[in-house]
């Protein structure tokens, strides 16, 4: 129960920080916010299985109920890789934009239009 509470608080805090940063005007802060939010979501996805099971590797189990559900773990791994790829792409875009505009303000994008 305590583990679940700690993880719930962690997910809530990460989501809160992520949303706060996304609402800022600095492009770098928005990027960090997206990264934090994506980590919060990954943790949430990880918790969609029962957290009490034993890791399903390296042993033979008599009772399959003892084993933790491996599927969310595989999903989280994929989600991390995809999230990392997209954040890297966006980091490149922000860097290029910074080179071009010499500015880190999201509002400047509208001024340029």
């Amino acid at each position, binding site marked *: 129960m305590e583990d679940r509470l700690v993880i719930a608080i962690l997910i809530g805090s990460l989501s809160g920080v992520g949303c706060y940063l996304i609402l800022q005007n600095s492009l770098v802060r928005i990027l960090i916010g*997206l990264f934090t939010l994506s980590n919060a*979501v990954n943790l949430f996805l990880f918790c969609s299985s029962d957290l009490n099971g034993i890791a399903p590797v390296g042993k033979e189990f008599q009772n399959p109920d003892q084993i933790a559900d491996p599927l969310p773990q595989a999903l989280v791994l*994929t989600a991390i890789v995809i999230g990392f790829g997209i954040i890297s792409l*966006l980091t490149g875009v922000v860097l*290029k934009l910074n080179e071009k505009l010499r500015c880190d303000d999201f509002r400047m994008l509208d001024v340029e239009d």
Partner: protein
Amino acid sequence: MSLNITALLILAIANLAVESIPSPKQALNKIFKWISAISLVGIMTIILTESHNESETVGGYEPRLGIEFRVSLAEKPLIFSTFAIFLHFLLFVDHARSLMIFLLTALTGVFTTNDLFNLFVWFELLLTASFIAPIISKPNFKAVLKYAIPSVIASAMFLIGIGILYKNSGYLNLNEISNSIQNTNQTQIGILFVAIAMLTKAGIVPFHFWLGASYHNFNNIIFPIIYATLTKIGLFALSKVLHKADLTLDPTLSSVMIVLSIVSISSGFILAFFEPNIKRCFAFFSICKSGFLLACLLWSSPSVFYTYLAYDTLFSYFFLISLLTDRNIPSTPIMFGWLGFPISGFFLTNIMLIISSHANPSFVGIYGLFKILALVLLLKIKSMKEETKVSLPDSVFALILIILISAFSVYDFVNG
């Protein structure tokens, strides 16, 4: 099915390699163009001729662990029209070939997968390809950011929805979810998250803010194919999740979505009508069209909804490719007066859709005939107004395809 997607991916990589050669020889480029076109026809034929009762699971695992690919009969017209417009783009426009094939790969993945998480993966690939699209001809990084940030947030929402639905059903396979899930409050929250994510991708009010700010930044050549496919795919995925997983919307949620569709229809039409910039105008009109599509999704059967999507994909692409890439027309601004007329025409044909999709039995095939008439009329108006010749291949190609789609829907109607 997974082999088809792998073949498309290899084709995209091969084209990327050819495009990366510093000074590609014209002959090599031409050979790859024709290889790609023939391969697309082959892959499309395989997908369309596969029995809709058969499914394929990657790795041979059971659905809980394996990823199942299956195409229903109702989805086939949509797959056909999507492949057809990419084939047309490849043969007659031939711009950014590797990116376009990559986009088609991701779209094929979205159309064929029967797995909730795999749907998320294909969506991310689709987004990656569409993030790159605005920076092909000029370094337009602002468009990428304005488009990417809401899309990444929407993807996070989708992932939360997947987590909740998995927690409640124990499955990711859409058919298995339908067998095991119970309609609890938690399930409704999961559906709500998935719906918000998909409505954001479709540009439904109030999640539309990114559309007007980013769509007009795509160049004239890529804009038609992006306009014809990307916003609709969000609603297609929502329909797939709701219908295949047999998820019932809560009456309150359903009412809210109906209100959102009405607001999107009216605000999208008004914004488009008074917008002088042609690409921004169509970006706003896609909000209106998404509203119509959402109404169709909520009120009619999946087969009617998919048939409408197929018609609309063809129509939007051929109208815009003829308008924007054909030639002597300035991209911005265009005269307000004449743009208001086709926009009103599109609005009326979409009202026809709602009437036809609501009828029992649906006469969506007649809607296709309206579309053919509208297309011929609009191309005629365009040639009169701009004093340019509308290219024959575009209109003939579009006409043949729309007749074929009509034949599909008649077949579907006859077979119940």
